[in-house]
């Protein structure tokens, strides 16, 4: 392939490699596309829909859609960001997200994305669902109030830890995270505090015990930096050499 393939994002030419998704091409080029369920260490998922962009006028999910030569992509526009804000608000009202008392506050991707998208209120009526908390494990708290069904824990447990500790059951608004143990409790599963799956949750659904509020306000990840900046810093480093 002699000539570099490119697509454009908001008018800027972005090069890409064979097999790239739009998200991968954008990340490598230092273009931030908001996302929650995407993590370059795992198979792309496509469920949160934060990363949806307009490709040649049609909505596409950037983390799963293949990059192609000549694509004209709109990412950081009023229309696209308005949809992202609505989707973020949907996530907030669907669960029980009480930021003031949450251990993840200040380090939470959902919260940070809300700030980045200028989300000023929930907008929609709250669902107040009955979600189960599982504190049985000696080292890990599972608070389903905060689960956004990104399935990062599911993927990490399956693809990296080789344990398949987590899964999703139910249908529709009744979806819930389930644990691979005979009792259904975390303590009877194979999950260990050193597992990748215990450390990939982008929100406060999987919390390591006895570490809450260890970092003072003012020194948390998102206290002085926007999520776009942090996300690119982390993920550009990882985007080094994939497609091996």
């Amino acid at each position: 392939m002699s000539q570099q393939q490119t697509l454009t994002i908001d008018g800027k030419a972005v090069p890409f490699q064979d097999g790239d998704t739009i998200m991968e091409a954008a990340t490598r080029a230092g273009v931030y596309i908001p996302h929650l369920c995407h993590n370059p260490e795992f198979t792309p998922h496509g469920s949160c829909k934060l990363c949806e962009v307009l490709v040649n006028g049609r909505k596409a999910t950037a983390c799963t859609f293949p990059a192609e030569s000549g694509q004209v992509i709109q990412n950081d526009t009023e229309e696209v960001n308005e949809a992202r804000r609505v989707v973020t608000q949907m996530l907030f009202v669907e669960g029980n997200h009480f930021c003031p008392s949450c251990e993840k506050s200040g380090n939470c991707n959902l919260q940070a994305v809300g700030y980045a998208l200028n989300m000023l209120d929930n907008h929609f009526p709250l669902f107040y669902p009955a979600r189960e908390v599982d504190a049985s494990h000696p080292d890990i708290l599972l608070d389903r109030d905060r689960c956004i069904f990104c399935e990062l824990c599911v993927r990490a447990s399956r693809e990296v830890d080789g344990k398949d500790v987590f899964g999703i059951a139910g249908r529709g608004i009744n979806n819930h995270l389930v644990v691979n143990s005979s009792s259904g409790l975390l303590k009877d599963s194979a999950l260990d505090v050193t597992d990748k799956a215990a450390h990939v949750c982008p929100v406060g659904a999987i919390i390591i015990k006895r570490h809450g509020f260890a970092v003072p306000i003012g020194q948390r990840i998102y206290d002085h930096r926007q999520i776009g900046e942090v996300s690119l810093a982390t993920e550009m480093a990882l985007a080094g050499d994939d497609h091996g």
Partner: protein
Amino acid sequence: MSLAEAEREKLLDIVRNHAARPTQLLQILREVQELLRCIPREAMEIVAAELGVPRTQVQGVAEFYSFLSLEPQGRFHILISDSISDQMLGSRALAAQLSQKLRVGLGQTRSDGRVSLGYTSCTGLCDQGPAGLVNGHWLSRLDKARIDLIATFIEWGVPLERWPREWFAVADNLHKPGLLFGNPIALGAALQTAVEKGFDTAFAEVDASGLRGRGGAGFQTSWKWKFCFEGPEELAVCPMGKPEKIERYVVCNADEGEPGTFKDRVLLNRHAHQVFEGMTLCAGIVGASQGFLYLRGEYLELKPQLEAVLAERRAANLLGKNILGKQGFDFDIEIHMGAGAYICGEESALIESLEGKRGVPRNRPPYPVTSGYLNKPTVVNNVETFAAAAAIVLNGGQWFASHGTEKSKGSKILSICGDCARPGIYEYDFGVTVAQILADCGAESALGVQVGGPSGVFISDKEFDRKLGFEDLATGGSFMIFDNTRDVLEVVRNFTHFFAHESCGFCTPCRVGTSLLRNNLDKICAGHGTAGDLAELSNLARIVKTASHCGLGQTAANPIISTLERYADLYQARLKNNISFEPGFDLDGALATARRLSGRDDAMAHLAQEAEA
């Protein structure tokens, strides 16, 4: 619930009968459900261990499909269809009557385990409702007298085999045969033609016919088959035309879950041979040796006769090895049952279900034609598409293309229900006007028609000159008629509830959005809506439509959008016009739990939403 030794043995038998293949998980769980009336945790353990899959996958499947339950269902499990056409015939009152007579709540199992009662989205008996299912068997034309008798039989514990046959009778109601119904092929005739003239010729006829998918989406059938034949790009070899020898699959989508659609039920009842012949032709053309019929759970009644048809075809050398003597032409068909999930009519969710997983639509691209069942090239087509393909190979592409319109060749089978004298099956050449259809089925004073089911469009009486076809009004077959006594908003509410119930839950906009739409619409219909709520409904509908992962979410807001366009005044009439905002908080509803706990229903146990003047 702890399993007895005998039950554990039967469980292991079930798994063994399916050769412990993980792709058979849903089929296995259906049988477990039948055996134990539920899927208890212990059963999940055993099945997971035997299949070598995580418990979470078994639990995931058990909780996804409506016909599976974690809690025991009754010895008699009754589901009443909640489709709008059944509601219009009084199904809700009949369900209430049954609930009262049997002293069992809706959505519950009676404490003695004798009976359980609930609603189901649609049974496919829309032309002979009010309809239901008892232990998976069709119940048609329910009425008050029959409900009383059913309740009595259940109390007496009369087994289903001794219930009157008329209660289970399902008619074809084929009122207007057309191009396909009027010209059924003789057994094996199309395959004989293909074997004699060659599969290239057979394919050319399908291509020349202009046949487009009959499930509703209308993708050109010959292109789909060609892409499957060619396979994924990575496997493209030189010279072109010699595809890599990898497995390919042919799948017939008989999920027919769109409310108001029942034409595939009739096609399979009358012309299963022709449908299977179409699948076999496809297999010969694309190079597949395994096919599946994915049959919706509500059509369990058809399974034995379909298996018999398959057996006949094997005996006649029309299935199996070296079909009709052609060396290497091997193909057979397996029937997989669905279990109550509308989303499994979506082709990639259907494939997931075939693989023994939850019916969650895949990320596309890649598409099933290059990466489908077990990530192999797969053709997924509708029942009617395969039946049409068989007729085309026999009679020629031109025969088919001489009917219909420029972009919509051939005929379309419609399943008509609702406010008309003669609901049932009608087949028309594409291009027919809605007015013509209404006249033929005896629909007078029609207010509007829902074309294409809830995911389609609601047209008003000012649009009856519009024509059926991909150019204008596309439909998989569902055609529901509403006369001028009907409340349009109640129709929209039924459809909106349906989508919230059937959402698979994968993506945020649909999982949350369909419930938000439902709640907002309920608020407006209950008279607590304001202009703000209406604007909200419209904005939310737009986001759900554009941001969703698959066709379900993308069409879930259509009922609201298409009626807001046409009947804005009906919505306006429901609004409170003296205030711009009313909280969506039902004061009286909030006390329901307290009333139940204290056993009170007196006036002082209720609160008015607004202070009395």
